[in-house]
């Protein structure tokens, strides 16, 4: 059981490391949001599922298990909301992408609405 817990938590550490590297290396804001999504999904899932197993098998503390489950559900609900809000807000704010986008249908449709 100890090996399973270690593997889960190490998976969280690895994906959080990949997210951090992506945050520093990716060229513009929109791509950095994808890297941040990697930290708040797989990092959180790995660490918290490992923590639930540790609490249930080694500490034997029911209240901590309940708190960890609440925290996992909270992160999985609010992570998409905040990344969607930041993406839309920064687009409306006028952040320009560093590298030219392949296709930008949102911008084209917004220009068409303004002309009408």
């Amino acid at each position, binding site marked *: 059981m100890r090996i399973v817990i270690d593997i889960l938590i190490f998976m969280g550490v*690895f*994906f959080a490391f*990949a*997210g951090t*590297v*992506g945050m520093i*290396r*990716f*060229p*513009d804001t*929109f*791509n950095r*949001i*994808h*890297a941040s*999504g*990697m930290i708040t*999904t*797989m990092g959180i*899932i790995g660490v918290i599922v490992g923590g639930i197993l540790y609490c249930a098998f080694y500490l034997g503390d*029911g*209240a901590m298990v*309940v708190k960890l489950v*609440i925290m996992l559900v909270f992160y*999985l*609900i609010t*992570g*998409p*909301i905040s*990344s*969607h809000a930041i*993406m*839309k807000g920064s*687009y409306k704010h006028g952040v320009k*992408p560093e*590298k030219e*986008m*392949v*296709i*930008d*249908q*949102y*911008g084209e*449709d917004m220009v068409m609405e303004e002309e009408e």
Partner: protein
Amino acid sequence: MNKKRTMPGIISTAILCFIFWMIITGQIVAVFTGGASLQSIVIGLIVSILVGWFSSLFLINDSPFYLWMPARLVNLIGYIFITLPVAIFKANVDVAKRALSPHPKINPGIVKIPVDVSSDYGMALVADSITLTPGTVTMDIVEENGQTYYYVHWIDVETTDPAEAGEIIKGTFERKVKGIWG
């Protein structure tokens, strides 16, 4: 947005809030082992009825027992515990490869994809699933001529055709959600 407060909506939202109160304050353990405090339970009941009256417009509005059918419940549990983690893991490995490779291979873009789900909960669930998998983020939802469209920011645009891109991004999610919320 001219919804009216209905009695079943208020009651079911209040029950949901009361269950959360019991779990967070730890009273649900104390009820079975003895020693639950009456004061705390009464306060939780009053507060959850107030919150239910206040927020039933946004959470549960009509037909509160829609999910209370075995087929839909089984589909929802399978979706949350099997489909979603597998998709999240695959997308994470893909984006991690891009981040850690010596030359980051990215060509971002915003595509517009059509979606067949019509109810509010279904649309929200599909949009949340798309955003939860790294590499795709939903930016906006619009409705044109009775067809719903999502604008999705995609880190690696493989194709610019709307139907093909939709199949790649949300094909499995949409087929599963259709079994729950139509």
